[in-house]
């Protein structure tokens, strides 16, 4: 039962010997949509239950906590540090977190699905809380005192009666941590949090602003050479001829050719790209569908079966929505440094799934997982786009072939083309309402884009909601919020149309059909702050709202837009209310909500991957527009703190409302309903 990670960890910690490990089942299902298209499940992994696997207190008092989760900008390095510090009753500056290192941290499925806060923070708290209790007990024994008479403060146990204190460092050595099983009975309730619940600053912000933090693409090894990979001209193309003589003749260049894989290594990145350019290759290509045919391919036009209401709806509405492929565009593209030492492989790479990438590498090179060590330095963002290990595998292939450490950093064009995309989709909705504005029937079909956020939160007596899998013409995978963005866009646009059909205000119509108290609370909070009851849309300035729920978070947004004479749309102001249970770090939470709104605005208005015949036609930032300073609206975030409710994750769901809120504002201004994401190409056509 001792796996490689445990052995590596023991080497690392040294002072901790072997011992009994009590393991519990992971009990967490891998969401089928979460992956980079591989859709693999990783069953059979169990989380260690001993405190030693998660926490180490050195004799000098240094506290190190270990988690397989990774930091990609969502600030979990800070929030998990807060959890540990809270339980140990110490300052977060006293805790160092080791993250996403397959030799040092417990196995983890990956950092996605907004799971870190609801599932990892409780584990870290359980382990740190148990450690606190053990330290307290050790001190009580040392002083023959009643543990209840002692206090834990600043990483010390204090006995005020005899005016003595013992530091964690002094006490920790007397405890056999591998035999201490985590007990959630010692976890601190949110109402008693001291460190969590506060806006603790980002723990490594200083390193970042000084340019000292080393991202995956910044890693260096002695004797490092630079890699580059020859890409086919289109997806699925096969190599028919190859001449690498000119490339091989360049000093310092090695060409690696293995099946359809052709790559080079060189003393620097410039020579590597020159060598790549010197390779002559011909390819067999195959015809493939293009952007223009995409939606007809996904769901051929034609009526869908309509749901039959109980009774006669006063009004019915049938509508079809389309969602384009979009790219994550993490500012740091895929990057990896791979190094072989005999038959052992070490890879530094930016990934949301270091353990998943370890499996991919082990499988690629047919070696046991305990011979592969993946290290994930806090990376230059991901947004669901870095689940997979293709760059790590390529770097490792090159490194193996040339017998030197290899760095491979994908170009922006490669990241656009050879990573995976947020799925496109078609959504069809058929609905009916009564004369009183009550929803009577609701039928919702999502083709290809995904099932997340598909169930309606509104009350409706007759409904049918389905996701239909369709084979994607382009490589697709996870994206922040998954299909919840597409499904909320369609549903909330449709609800807005129904409100108009019912002759009701969009807010009144939603409240008429909502029971969920948490969703109602954010809707009321956002509209109150926005002043919804006072606004009146005109043809140039208009207002829209939307609300929704997914992954345990509740969100409502109001948007104010301006439409100029070129039919360009600018979002001027957004008020978003957000509730995800007990708040861990208010400032970082606001930052996430703001970021989600800005990122969501891109997919709402203008982001779209254009493709034809297996080629991405806009694989550059000069061609694929992402939101910039001038696009960012004034944003007001209202956080509802629910100390009585477990914290849900917040990195994703705040993105779902901005697109329908904008679309609804355009409708309010013009009477035009745009049923496509992105909105602008259709609106301006």
């Amino acid at each position, binding site marked *: 039962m001792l796996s490689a990670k445990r052995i590596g960890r023991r080497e690392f910690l040294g002072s901790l010997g072997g011992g009994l490990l009590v393991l519990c089942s992971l009990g967490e299902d891998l969401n089928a949509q979460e992956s980079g298209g591989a859709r693999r499940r990783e069953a059979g992994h169990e989380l260690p239950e001993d405190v030693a696997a998660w926490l180490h207190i050195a004799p000098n008092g240094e506290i190190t906590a270990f988690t397989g989760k990774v930091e990609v900008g969502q600030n979990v390095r800070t929030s998990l540090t807060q959890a540990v510090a809270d339980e140990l009753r110490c300052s977060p500056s006293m805790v160092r977190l080791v993250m996403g290192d397959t030799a040092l941290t417990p196995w983890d499925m990956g950092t996605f699905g907004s799971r870190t806060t609801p599932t990892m923070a409780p584990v870290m708290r359980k382990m740190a809380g148990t450690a606190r209790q053990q330290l307290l007990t050790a001190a009580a024994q040392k002083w023959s005192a009643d543990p209840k008479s002692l206090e834990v403060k600043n990483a010390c146990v204090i006995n005020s009666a005899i005016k003595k204190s013992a530091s964690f460092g002094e006490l920790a050595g007397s405890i056999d941590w591998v035999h201490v099983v985590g007990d959630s009975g010692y976890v601190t309730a949110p109402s008693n949090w001291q460190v969590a619940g506060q806006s603790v600053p980002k723990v490594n912000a200083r390193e970042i602003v000084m340019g000292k933090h080393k991202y995956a693409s910044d890693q260096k090894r002695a004797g490092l050479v*630079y890699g580059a990979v020859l890409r086919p001209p289109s997806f699925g193309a096969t190599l028919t001829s190859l001449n690498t003589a000119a490339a091989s003749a360049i000093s310092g260049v090695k060409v690696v050719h293995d099946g359809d894989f052709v790559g080079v290594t060189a003393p620097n990145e410039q020579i590597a790209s020159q060598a790549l350019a010197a390779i002559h290759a011909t390819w067999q290509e195959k015809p493939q569908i293009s952007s223009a045919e995409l939606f007809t391919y996904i769901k051929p036009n034609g009526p869908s079966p309509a749901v039959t209401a109980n009774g006669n709806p006063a009004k019915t509405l049938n509508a079809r929505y389309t969602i384009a492929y979009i790219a994550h565009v993490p500012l740091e593209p895929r990057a990896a440094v791979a190094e072989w030492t005999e038959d052992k492989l070490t890879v530094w790479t930016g990934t949301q799934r270091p353990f998943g990438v370890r499996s991919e590498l082990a499988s690629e090179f047919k070696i046991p997982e305990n011979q592969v060590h993946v290290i994930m330095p806090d990376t230059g963002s991901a947004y669901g786009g870095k689940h997979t290990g293709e760059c790590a595998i390529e770097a490792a292939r090159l490194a193996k072939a040339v017998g030197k450490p290899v760095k491979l950093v994908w170009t922006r064009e490669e990241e656009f083309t050879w990573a995976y995309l947020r799925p496109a989709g078609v959504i069809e909705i058929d609905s009916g309402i009564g004369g009183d504005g009550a929803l009577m029937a609701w039928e919702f079909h999502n083709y290809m884009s995904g099932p997340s956020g598909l169930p309606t939160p509104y009350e409706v007596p007759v409904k049918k909601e389905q996701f239909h899998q369709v084979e994607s013409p382009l490589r697709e995978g996870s994206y922040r919020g998954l299909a919840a963005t597409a499904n909320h866009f369609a549903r909330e646009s449709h609800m807005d149309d129904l409100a108009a059909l019912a002759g009701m205000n969009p807010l009144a119509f939603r409240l008429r059909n909502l029971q969920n108290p948490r969703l109602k609370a954010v809707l009321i909070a956002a509209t109150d702050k926005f002043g919804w009851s006072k606004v009146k849309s005109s043809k140039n300035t208009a207002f829209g709202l939307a609300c929704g729920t997914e992954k345990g978070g509740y969100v409502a947004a109001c948007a104010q837009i301006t439409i100029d004479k070129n039919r360009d749309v600018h979002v001027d102001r957004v008020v978003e209310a957000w509730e995800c249970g007990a708040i861990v770090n208010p400032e970082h939470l606001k930052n996430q909500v703001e970021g989600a709104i800005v990122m969501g605005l891109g997919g709402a208005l203008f982001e779209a991957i254009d493709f034809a015949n297996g080629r991405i036609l806009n694989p550059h930032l000069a061609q694929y527009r992402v939101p910039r300073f001038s696009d960012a609206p004034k944003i007001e975030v209202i956080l509802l703190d629910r100390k009585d409710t477990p914290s849900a994750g917040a990195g994703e769901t705040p993105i779902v409302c901005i697109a329908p809120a904008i679309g609804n504002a355009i409708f309010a201004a013009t009477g035009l309903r745009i049923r496509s994401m992105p909105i602008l190409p259709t609106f301006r056509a």
Partner: protein
Amino acid sequence: MDLVINGTRTSVSVDPARPLLFVLRNELDYTGAKYGCGEGQCGACTVLIDGEPHRSCVTPVGIVAGKEITTIEGLADGDKLHPVQQAFIECDAMQCGYCTGGMVLSSVALLRKNPSPTEAQIKQALEGNVCRCGTYNRILSAVQKARQLMLTQAKENYRAER
């Protein structure tokens, strides 16, 4: 050729056509400038050349020989952060931090030229810098905060000199 980086003169033997970014990162270990797009569109690679912000990914190293190059690593005075760096921390003006070095240097250049920029001027100056995490409003606040910190610092320096 000789490069003057953060006040230190360094000799390198490289192709003058090679982009400054890769010379900094791969030959000299200044990894604070980042690769984001390779075509001057994202600003992650921004460095200051004689005080002006430049996209080092599209700047041939040959044309900056002998000029003063400032990278993000050279901005702080030892352990003392530049006011813009301090303001970025105080405003939590980052998420993943990959764009931060470029944002900070572009802001420093703006504030040197225009110590009291309006919001529109800040947006205009930083329009070429992408923060994919979407922290634009926080960066705007940070630049305004930095302006205050710099004013306070200037007043203190003035008092100290008197």
